């Protein structure tokens, strides 16, 4: 991740309305990629790179001069809508563009044009991946910057629809079936969220987060709104036991789509939930404990399922269920003494999981491409060993388990520290248990990679380094390196942090 130095930037960029641009740019590019299918790859990669550059510049600007607010249309809230950029939002913007770029590079190779031999299904994937990814990017960026609950609802719809499109990109029957369930689950989540928005507006006459955050008294209507919105977001985030749609949707999608869905899409709704929880509503102890318990349930259930399934892709998908549960433990901790540390840890776990899980799905895609299957039982018998993809998988696993010096380690450490400072030993125990379980299920494929005693015939290692292996490897390295280079992200996260007294924004 490259952080531009603010002093080297031209003053012109320093005055641009970058928050609007990071939403509008991918939108225009999505239309362009749909309009000109033959140039879609170039448009997609170029736009993602531009959005990444704009996001980095925005992050640099934030580090230099604090949080920003753009009043759209020139109308101030509560009449208009404002885009608000704080450190958390900027961090998500940069991470999303960065991961999107690497996954996009992987996709540009796996969906490469094959000329006359191309099957209709392959052509469809090649043509539709880019508009869908760019719409997804626009939806995510809109979500990160939104400071208005109704606007968040619309952004969630863009995100949800483009995510369903990506989930069914392969066109296979299993993917279509899973995609339909995903669509229904996502719509149910959206409608619950919208119902919550209705209650908020009915009770307060406001939909902007700043006004809502200033309300101290929790009335029954506000509690109802909070519960409805969090329930809707829990479905979209696949928090146990509302994760029913995730394993099928994520494991049947094509590899780059799975990577985006698991790394970024579920984090979008989790981001909103965390923001509402910390910025807007005074945390409610009982509800926080309940979400924490669901998180603990997710860790146990997701891990047990990951230990039982026979398909590698399904294992990785269930690992997402467990990891989401781990991150959701923070809801039980924000109200305590170590709340800020736990929150930092959760944010870092979101970033770490995004990098590690996209690396893992891409690596699994490469392994399945080599072997022609992704059965766990047959891994150790296979004479063919796609070494680089396996290394990428293992490195990603290091971060998911939380071994030092990975980003996963740092996130988990901060979350643990927050729990220990709050004397919340129950949650410490859950985290330790979750770590052990993650070792257990991730060792299933890794031991398969490393066992050679049952191979029938000579072991074959692809001798030539394939460029396609670079992208999962790169993402896995990012998942490790973000643990070593944590100073800048953490100081960015402190900009406009909800845990410190907010500075007055001019």
């Amino acid at each position, binding site marked *: 991740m490259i952080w531009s130095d603010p002093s080297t930037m031209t003053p012109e960029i320093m005055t641009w*309305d970058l928050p*609007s641009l990071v939403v*509008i740019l991918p*939108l*225009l590019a*999505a*239309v362009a990629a*749909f*309009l000109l299918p033959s140039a879609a790859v170039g448009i997609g990669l170029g736009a993602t790179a531009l959005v990444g550059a704009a996001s980095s510049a925005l992050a640099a600007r934030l580090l230099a001069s604090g949080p920003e607010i*753009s*009043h*759209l*249309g*020139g*109308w101030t809230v*509560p*009449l*208009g*809508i404002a885009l608000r950029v704080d450190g958390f939002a900027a961090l998500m913007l940069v991470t999303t563009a960065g991961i999107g770029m690497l996954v996009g590079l992987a996709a540009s190779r796996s969906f490469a044009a094959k000329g006359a031999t191309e099957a209709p299904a392959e052509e*469809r994937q090649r043509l*539709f991946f880019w*508009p*869908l990814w760019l*719409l997804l990017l*626009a939806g995510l960026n*809109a979500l990160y910057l939104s400071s208005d609950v*109704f*606007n968040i609802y*619309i*952004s969630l*719809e*863009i995100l949800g*629809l*483009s995510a*369903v*499109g990506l989930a*069914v*990109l392969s*066109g296979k029957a299993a993917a*279509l079936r899973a995609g339909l369930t995903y669509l229904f689950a996502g719509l149910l989540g959206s409608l619950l969220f919208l*119902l919550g928005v209705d*209650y908020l*507006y*009915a*009770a*307060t*006459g*406001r939909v902007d987060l700043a006004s809502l955050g200033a309300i101290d008294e929790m*009335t*029954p*209507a506000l509690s*109802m709104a909070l519960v409805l919105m969090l329930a809707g977001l829990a479905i979209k985030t696949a928090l146990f036991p509302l994760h029913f749609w995730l394993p099928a949707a994520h494991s049947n999608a094509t590899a780059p789509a799975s990577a985006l869905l698991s790394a970024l899409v579920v984090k979008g709704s989790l981001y909103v939930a965390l923001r509402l929880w910390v910025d807007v509503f005074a945390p409610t102890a009982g509800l926080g404990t309940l979400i924490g318990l669901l998180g603990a349930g997710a860790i146990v259930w997701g891990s047990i399922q990951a230990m039982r399934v026979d398909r590698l892709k399904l294992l990785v998908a269930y690992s997402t269920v467990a990891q989401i549960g781990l991150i959701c433990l923070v809801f039980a901790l924000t109200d305590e003494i170590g709340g800020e540390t736990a929150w930092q840890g959760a944010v870092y776990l979101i970033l770490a999981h995004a990098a590690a899980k996209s690396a893992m799905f891409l690596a699994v895609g490469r392994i399945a491409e080599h072997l022609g299957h992704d059965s766990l039982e047959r891994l150790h018998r296979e004479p063919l060993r796609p070494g680089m993809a396996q290394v990428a998988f293992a490195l990603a696993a290091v971060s998911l388990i939380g071994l030092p010096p990975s980003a996963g380690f740092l996130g988990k450490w901060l979350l643990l520290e927050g729990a220990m400072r709050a004397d919340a030993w129950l949650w410490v125990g859950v985290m330790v248990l979750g770590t052990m379980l993650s070792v257990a299920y991730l060792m299933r494929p890794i031991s398969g990679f490393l066992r050679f005693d049952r191979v029938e015939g000579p072991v074959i290692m692809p001798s030539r380094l394939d460029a396609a292996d670079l992208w999962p490897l790169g993402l896995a390295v990012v998942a490790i390196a973000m643990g070593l280079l944590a100073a800048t992200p953490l100081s960015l996260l402190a900009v406009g942090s909800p845990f410190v007294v907010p500075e007055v924004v001019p």
Partner: protein
Amino acid sequence: MLLWLVFDLVLIGAIVWLAWAALAARDGFEMIVLFMVLGLFVALAWVRLQAPDVALAEAAVGSGITGALLLKTWRHRRGRAAGDAAADARPSRALGFGVMGLVTVLTGMLAAVLVLIPRPAPSLAETVFANLAVSGVDNPVTAVLLNFRAYDTLLEVVVLFAVVVVVWLLGDAEADRRAPRLGSIFFGFARLVLPVMVLIAGYLLWLGGFAPGGAFQAGAVLGAVGIVLLLGRLYTPTAADRLPARLVFGLGTVGFAGAGLATLALGNAFLGYPPEAAKTWILVIEAMLTVSIAATLAGLFFGAAPSGRPTRESDR
């Protein structure tokens, strides 16, 4: 007053009964028709709640276009659903009552909390009316949708675009998408109604500036024109229409976002129109939205990227 009370009670009764009847219907076609009638009654309820803009949208989109999409899907599935045990299977009675109980409890809680909210409920209506004079339009709903919260509307147009992209991804281009052959009465009907519908769409678009109406309602009516054209095979899209279709689908997003970039270039905030020309900006954006929404809705009805060669004259 008493008369209105009676009317409202009958309306409420009809809505609840239609909803129940639609849910209880065994036949898909019956269910869809009941759902469309339900939409019309809900539109009436919106009129009674003094929300004519919502009523128009509910009637045009919620009942009309949605009904057409449902009927199209029903016809598409009719041939293959027979013998599909999974599709025919109904959930068990116990599950049905369980869900009903849960929904009743939840609805009761929602209603109770709603009643507890002190009246008059706070709202932004006063702020909207205070700023109406500088918004460029006289209809407060249009002022909110196209000016105060134009960014929301931009993203809503993007949602429509995303839907049509996914439909083109999934739509089976090889399937025969021609409408059933319709009799001569239909063509007489179309000849009479189509020009009027185009006129109504234009009128609704213009009306939005000062009275209930606007791009979404106008787009829905214009989209219905497209549906009638498709149904009567008066227009059969071919592969050559793909690029123009893509252009029109994207027009709403590009036009709206482009207007935003133009305002930035003028030195204003994003989507901050120059106050003296706000009406013109809004009207131009709405015109682009109307065309784009209409094409998108008709495109959704068609259900796939068009394929095949231009129709021969003898097919008509």
